[in-house]
Every structure is written in C-alpha cells, then in structure tokens.
C-alpha cells in the first residue's frame, strides 16, 4: 500500500500541475469566486497585458462588501462604491464571467452562496480574494484566500504558485453542552493557540464533536481558521456532507453523482497518516465564548474574567493586552456578564445562514429588543432571506424591534455605511474584533448568534443558557 496521506495531502497532490525544484508548486484551481473589492486591479492587469480569462466557467462573481443592506438602490451608495460595483459588472461582461449583481435574487455573501449552490464540493481547490475563503473547507475542499495579484494569476491561468503548507490536526472531543455552538468551539481554539498559532499550516478539524456538527455549523468552524493564522481549515466529507449536497443545483446528478461519491469517499485522512502539529479540545467543558480584546484570540468563557496583563510574563504580550484593555475600556479581572452594550450585529459569512438565524429567533421569540439597543440582522444571501421569511423568522425579529436587512457583509466590515459610532459596544456574530473593524472607534465583542441575541434582548452581555430551554 502507498504511504498513508492526510485529506489535505490528497487534495494537494491531485492539483499540483508542476513543481520545479526551488520554486513553489503550480496549483490548479477548480473554482474561483470573485467580489467587487479585491478584483478591479486584477482585471485591469489582464487588460494591460492583453490576457483573457482562461476558464470563465470555473468562476463566479457576486457583490457583497460595499453594497447597501437597507435596500437595493444606487442612491444609497457613495460614488466610490457605485463605481466599484459597476466596475465589477463591466469586467464580468467583458470577460464573460457570471455575476450575481445586487439586484439578483441569488446574490449573497461570497462564502454563503458557493455552498448553497453546490459549487463548493469535496476534493476541490477553491480560491477567492478574501481571507474567509477557508469557510468552504467544511466540505473537504482545499479553500483559501488570495491577494489581488493572485486573483489575476487565477483569472489568466487557472493556477497559482503555492508553497506547500504544513498540516495541523485540531481535534474536538466530547459532546457540546446545550447553548454552546460551533462559534464557541472556534473562538475557544483561537484563544488556545493564539492568532498566529496556525501560520504556515492548514487545519484539519477532526473528532466526534466535529462529526456531529451539521454543514452550516461546520462552515462556521472552518470560516474562522484564518483567525487562528491558518490559511485553510478542512473537514473530511461524510454522509452529512453528501446529504447536504445531493439536491444542490451544481451537485453532480445521476451517474456522475455516484462516481463523485466514490471519489469523495476516498478523501478522508488514511489511518496512520500524521500531522505536523496537533491540539485537542474537549468541548464538553466549553461555555459560550466571547472576546474582550482587539483580536479573536483575546477570548474568555462568558462567565470568566478578563486576564490581568500584570500576570503575563512576555512583555510584548503584556503591552498588547494593555492596549486592548485601553481600546475596549475594560479592566483586568473584570467580568463581562452584565456589561451594557449598544449594538448587536447578527450576520457575516461566519453566522448568517438559516441555522444561525433560527438559533437567534429562538431567543427573540416573545421578547423585545432592550431599550436603546440597535439590532441589525443581515441574512447571508437572498436564499437565506427567503427561507427565513418562509419560516416567519423575519416577523419574530421585526416584532422584537430588530432591523431585518438585505444580504451583504454589512457591519462585519463597515464599508457600506452600516457601522458603529466611536466608543459603542457591539456584540457581533462576525469574525474580527480588530480596532475600528465595525467603524472607527467601535468596540466589537465576538460571540455566537445565541449570545448575540441574548445581549439584544437584555441590553447587556448575558449568558444565553439562562434564556433557553
């Protein structure tokens, strides 16, 4: 028998077109996703060099980052945003690439629409000029974010130059307690290994707790791999994956489906294969997790206390903690439970799928948004929006006093006018609590949809387990 391989190694080996000694590998890309922010300079590069898009049929564009979510009208956008989306539209027309523009009923956040269309499939290589491309790894696809130069490379050649990353097994054991979610699992991981812990590596999430997650929860887990420093995060495909995919528009049909299944079942890591690094986390002891600082690794259990920088031996880490406390206006040793908040954002490619909205609705149902709190609920795609409305979730949100929006990135990145005022506290289901990420001077506390909804109805940081069941 040949050398046992990991899931990552199987996909990698299957996509290396050529590798010259001393040079990075030329890696073939099966699917290239595009959005308005990181693509204009790449198309410009093609034009300057007189190049065409090699495989328009392996490419799909959407608009998500800079578009308004209060409604769909150019009058709601500033001139630069209008120019940016029009540039994407013109580029897609010129180069023959399908595009879901902001008026299309299939539009959505790039990492939400790939999976829901069935474009994201096991064993593929998928790239996008966006670091959260790691999301698609939930299907056992090797998916990672690239820069704009690389977007140009993929458009022109359907390949990129890549050095082979190392592998990192993240094993989640045990059973998730009630009220604790995939979001809490990934925040706990990043708090454990730090935001640089996965640099140079690709995560593979394993263990019984991962196997029990549904596809949408797996997408949440893989989404934040990049926040732990890993470019990609993978989960071996299994029956949960295949069931989810079976009826999606782009999933293979008939005989092709049977053949694909046979290929996909060979993907999981072979017994005896080894990883370069590994970590194990027992989820049965997890609580809901929230962040207190200015990177996703600065996280604590919801009933916990903010660590004291004076107890941190490394002077640079100490400085970083002090800076975070100052920015967030928190104190060492402080418990965040009960801390008042101003805004709640439920959305983003991390937590804006139907499962996330159902969880949030469970808390909103029969309750009201606390006085003075602003709540934005932004579905991840038009399809999620339709589904939520069919289930009546929008009514629950609106009756509670939350804003129900059109799909887009919205306050995850605050490019479109949805943003915090300086000094405001926001409990957010997005993935980055960097300084100013949700608006200059805004203070972000990352959390699960359950924890965010609990904050919305109480006006303060609240353990969601006290409101469910």
């Amino acid at each position, binding site marked *: 028998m040949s050398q046992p391989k990991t899931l990552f190694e199987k996909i990698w080996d299957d996509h290396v077109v050529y590798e010259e000694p001393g040079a990075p590998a030329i890696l073939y890309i099966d699917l290239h996703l595009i959005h308005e922010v990181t693509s204009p300079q790449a198309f410009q*590069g093609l034009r300057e060099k007189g190049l065409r898009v090699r495989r328009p049929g392996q490419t799909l564009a959407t608009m998500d*980052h800079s578009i308004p979510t209060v409604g769909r009208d150019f009058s709601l956008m500033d001139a*630069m945003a209008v120019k940016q989306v029009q540039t994407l*539209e013109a580029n897609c027309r010129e180069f023959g690439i399908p595009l879901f523009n902001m008026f299309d009923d299939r539009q959505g956040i790039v990492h939400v629409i790939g999976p829901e269309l069935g474009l994201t499939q096991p064993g593929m290589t998928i790239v996008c000029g966006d670091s959260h491309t790691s999301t698609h790894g939930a299907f056992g696809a090797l998916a990672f974010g690239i820069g704009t130069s690389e977007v140009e490379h993929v458009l022109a050649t359907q390949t990129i130059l890549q050095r082979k990353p190392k592998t990192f097994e993240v094993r989640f054991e045990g059973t998730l307690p009630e009220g604790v979610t995939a979001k809490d699992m990934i925040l706990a991981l990043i708090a454990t290994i730090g935001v640089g812990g996965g640099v140079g590596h690709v995560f593979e999430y394993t263990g019984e707790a991962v196997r029990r997650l549904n596809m949408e929860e797996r997408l949440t887990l893989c989404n934040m791999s990049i926040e732990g420093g890993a*470019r990609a995060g993978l989960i071996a495909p299994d029956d949960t994956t295949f069931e989810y995919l079976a009826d999606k528009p782009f999933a293979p049909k008939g005989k092709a489906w049977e053949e694909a299944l046979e290929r996909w079942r060979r993907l999981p890591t072979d017994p005896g294969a080894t990883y370069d690094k590994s970590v194990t986390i027992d989820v049965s002891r997890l609580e809901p997790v929230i962040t207190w600082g200015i990177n996703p690794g600065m996280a604590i259990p919801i009933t916990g206390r903010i660590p004291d920088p004076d107890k941190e031996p490394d002077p640079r880490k100490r400085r970083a903690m002090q800076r975070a406390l100052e920015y967030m206006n928190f104190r060492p040793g402080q418990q965040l439970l009960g801390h008042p908040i101003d805004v709640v954002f439920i959305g983003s490619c991390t937590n804006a799928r139907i499962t996330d909205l159902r969880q949030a609705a469970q808390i909103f149902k029969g309750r009201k948004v606390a006085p003075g709190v602003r709540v934005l609920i932004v579905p991840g795609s038009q399809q999620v929006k339709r589904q939520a409305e069919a289930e009546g979730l929008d009514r629950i949100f609106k009756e509670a006093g939350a804003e129900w929006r059109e799909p887009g990135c919205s306050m995850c990145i605050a490019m479109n006018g949805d943003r915090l005022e300086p000094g405001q506290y926001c409990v957010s289901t997005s993935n980055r609590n*960097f300084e100013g990420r949700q608006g200059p001077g805004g203070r972000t506390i990352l959390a699960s949809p359950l924890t965010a909804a609990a904050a919305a109805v109480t006006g303060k940081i609240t353990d969601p387990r006290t409101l469910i069941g």
Partner: protein
Amino acid sequence: MEPFVTLTSKLVPLPNENVDTDQIIPAQYLKVTDKVGLGKYLFAGWRYLPDGSPNPDFVLNRPEMQGRKVLLAGNNFGSGSSREHAVWALQGWGFRAVISTRFADIFYNNALKNGLLPVVVDEETHQRLFRWVDADPNVEITIDLPNQKLCLPDGTEVTFPIDSFSKHCLLKGLDQLGYLLEHLPRVEAYETSHPPRVDTTVLLTQVPPSPAPRS
C-alpha cells in the same frame, strides 16, 4: 516591478504586535479600483485624529521619519484580511521592506508579488533592533538580498530566509505571472486529464444586468 537588490535605510519603528491589515489600511479606503495613491491611507486609524488632522504622536507623522524605507514592525505582522491594498499602501508611503519575527501567510505572499521585501528575523535580533532605535532613532541597517543578509547597526550580520524563486523574481523585478504563463502547456495537459468539476456559464443567460443608476 522595481528590482530589489540592496537597501540601506533608517528604520520606522512600530512595536505593536499582531498588526492586522485592517490597521494597515482600514476598510473604508478599499472602495478604490486602482492601486496607486493608497499611501495616504496607510495606518489611517492611528495616523489621523477624528477631525482628520495628523496625530502628532503617531510615528509616521514625525518629520524625521519621512523618506525612510524600512518598517520595523512588531511580532506577527499582516494578519487578517487578504487585501493586497495593505501592501500597496505600505509601498505608496515609500516602504520597500518590513522587518518582523513572523508574517501572516497571505500578507507575505502579497508583499513578495509586489516587490515589498518581508524580512523575517529571530526574536533576539528583533528586540535588539528595537533597542537600537530607542537609543538612537537614526541608526541605519542594510538589507543585502543576494546574500540574504541584514547588516545591523553594530556591523554584525544576520541572515534571513527567502525561497530561491521569490528571491530570483525580486532581484530581477520579475512578475510571477510571467512564470505561470510560460507553463500554460502543462496546465492544458492537466485540464485534459482533469475535466472541470463545475460549469458556471450556465448561469450567464439567467443573469439580468443591473438597472442603470439614476444620476
């Protein structure tokens, strides 16, 4: 791309750890459709006061820092978003190299593709460099790419890693796309034995264009 061979410069120290690309260039400046002119947005959140005037306490605003070409950054530089705008903003300000102990993967790749040299040094050298700059803000270092050496203010040298392919491209000022295009026949051969997994062009006929904006 401008070739990179050797560079002697004073340093701009920015000891903050885990500086992410949202800090290097905040998202509100990403609505541009070209690469030039981003230097003025570099570290905008720290560099300007809420009223838009320069923050006199921020390092880039100190008069003696103007014209320096090397950023001495804290640990783990460039994490977060994949935005290449971060590299374009650093270059727009005038930086040609960044020194840190560790770079986020996507930032590192983006930098190399644009001729911005990421220099990885060990913890001890990193801390010594900060001490030198603290003691004398005008110390100079030299980056010698052919020999992969960083010449420190006391005349000693340390080596830094870079893969031979990227080094070659930097020394010659070569665009990596040229390399990929040369190998297109291999891509064609690959595609013959690996048919496409999906065909999105079926969507083309179903997609209506946006209505014209009202102006």
